[in-house]
């Protein structure tokens, strides 16, 4: 009886689907690939993918919970990489200056996205589609103009390298994994324990009612856009520092991968429902499918099929669990 209700309680939570999905892919790759991907080298491969994606997926998921969408992250990743590489690589200025400018630009573009969304009332998908292309154009145009090349080298040493762009734990796990864990804990507090999380869910549930209840919906929207674009710039910056170079292209895969992680993680596309833990599990699930395929005998081209099926199954499961949560009423005494 007791274990029954504990299971029921889990299934009614937003992360239920993500949790079951994670178990399913672990079982799948455990059977077909052996357990190599759970050994340190294998773990590192999917944890690196999950961390880089997860730092972006959480704020993207928050925007989705609040009823918005940000696809400009796909351009912010190369933007972040290129900004730090041009400033600290091409011009050879201090890496700390490069970091500060990169993150400031991330904040700035987030402000711009958020401002356009609240002022124009154009759906944020369209606004950020516009900024996705605009930022891509800026990155390509300015980089070629300044460096006469589409790839810029960057050499970083010392504490900045150790902090943002190095491997930890004996050389396979990226520092980003630690950032991801720390950031995820911060978001869990922000969303599920501080009062502001409540505001985000209310905004996604019904924006007008939320505003009438006294929630500063416009300021919150801007803050969330700033978080997502700054996070994407941060990931790009760290990648450039890790690989010692930056490319103008790349990063688009983050758009769909982040959305898949968020949806598999149980966030409702129309807003108002979801959890950080769910997004966290969703990201790991995605990363395991993405990397686990290398540890099996399958051709890696099949991984997209698995991800597609996973996404559909996850959405269907999440719908079922949400209905369970809605219809749930404690049964006490005779009724």
């Amino acid at each position, binding site marked *: 009886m007791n274990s029954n209700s504990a299971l029921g309680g889990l299934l009614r939570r937003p992360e239920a689907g993500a949790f079951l999905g994670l178990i399913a892919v672990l079982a799948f790759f455990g059977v077909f690939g052996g357990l190599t991907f759970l050994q340190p080298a294998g773990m590192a491969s999917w944890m690196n993918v999950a961390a880089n994606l997860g730092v972006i997926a959480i704020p993207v998921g928050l925007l989705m919970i609040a009823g918005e969408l940000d696809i400009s992250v796909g351009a912010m990743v190369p933007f972040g990489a290129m900004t730090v590489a041009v400033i600290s690589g091409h011009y050879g200025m201090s890496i700390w200056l490069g970091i500060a400018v990169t993150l400031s630009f991330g904040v700035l573009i987030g402000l711009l996205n958020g401002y356009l969304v609240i002022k124009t009332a154009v759906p944020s998908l369209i606004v950020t589609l516009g900024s996705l292309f605009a930022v891509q154009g800026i990155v390509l145009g300015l980089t070629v103009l300044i460096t006469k090349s589409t790839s810029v080298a960057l050499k970083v040493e010392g504490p900045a390298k150790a902090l943002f762009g190095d491997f930890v734990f004996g050389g396979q796990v990226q520092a980003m994994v630690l950032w991801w864990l720390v950031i995820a804990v911060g978001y869990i507090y922000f969303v599920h324990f501080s009062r502001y999380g409540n505001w985000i869910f209310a905004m996604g549930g019904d924006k007008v009612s939320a505003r009438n209840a006294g929630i500063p919906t416009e300021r919150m929207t801007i803050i969330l856009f700033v978080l997502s674009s700054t996070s994407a710039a941060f990931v790009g910056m760290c990648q450039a520092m890790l690989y010692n170079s930056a490319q103008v292209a790349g990063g688009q895969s983050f758009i769909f991968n982040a959305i898949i992680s968020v949806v598999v993680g149980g966030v409702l596309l129309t807003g108002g429902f979801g959890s950080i833990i769910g997004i966290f599990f969703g990201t790991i699930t995605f990363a395991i499918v993405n990397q686990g395929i290398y540890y099996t005998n399958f051709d890696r081209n099949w991984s997209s099929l698995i991800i597609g099926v996973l996404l559909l199954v996850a959405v269907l499961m999440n719908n079922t669990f949400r209905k369970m*949560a*809605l219809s749930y009423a404690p049964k006490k005494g005779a009724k």
Partner: protein
Amino acid sequence: MGETILSLQGINKSFGPIDVLHDISLEVKAGEVLCLLGDNGAGKSTVIRLLSGVHQPTSGQMVMDGRPVLFRNPREAADHGIATVHQFGGTFPLMSIGRSFFVGREPTRWFGPLKIYDRKKANEIAVKAVQNFGITRIDDGDRLVGGLSGGERQALAIARAVHFGARVLILDEPTAALGVKQATHVLRIVNEAKRRGLAVIFITHQVMHAMAVGDHFAVLIRGAVAADFRKGEKTREEITDLMAGGASMASLEAEIETYMTTHDGHPPPVSSAAAH
């Protein structure tokens, strides 16, 4: 009855060249239900938006407790104790009862150095507030609002408004989407709010519901107050006629009756009735 809490005095509202409200004067007293009746498009919603601070009057003034007031935004209206509850309760279906009850005013407690949302306290207060309105079926603050019936959602929204110190309660078509039994629940809650000394403005186009709880009635037609009367001064038929724009409803009824007597009791086909 109590003293007048809120009154509108000669309010006009136009959006650009379109006059939506014309010389509206209304007042509502503590412990009294003012029913605002009117057909779709009569201007009921605009009156609500003025009262709740979404729009501002073009001319005329609002007086609260004897002093002129101007609500520049919904927050200011709320700060003056004016709470609006919309048709579907204005609540968040995928949030828990406790969280939804305290949206924007979450109780917090210290957890070490961090300030966190006090779920237990929020749930306790929310459940108690709703139960005080006679909805004893709600006993778990973790349930999602979307799982409640329409009447329970209305009760939750009204209890929330009262809990946060509302003095004027504006109910926008609270019974429109409800079945008979649920609507009765809501009407009971309206009576309970009135008993507690709130001034209630009850917007509806269901005359039966208005007559069940109203003390004072105002009928809006094309943006003007067409009639203003107290309980017992008019019959249901008279009110319905007023809302439909005077005699037109009565003549339609007569027309149908004539048709039925000449056609063995069959009602006229829709096209024939419309053609007349």
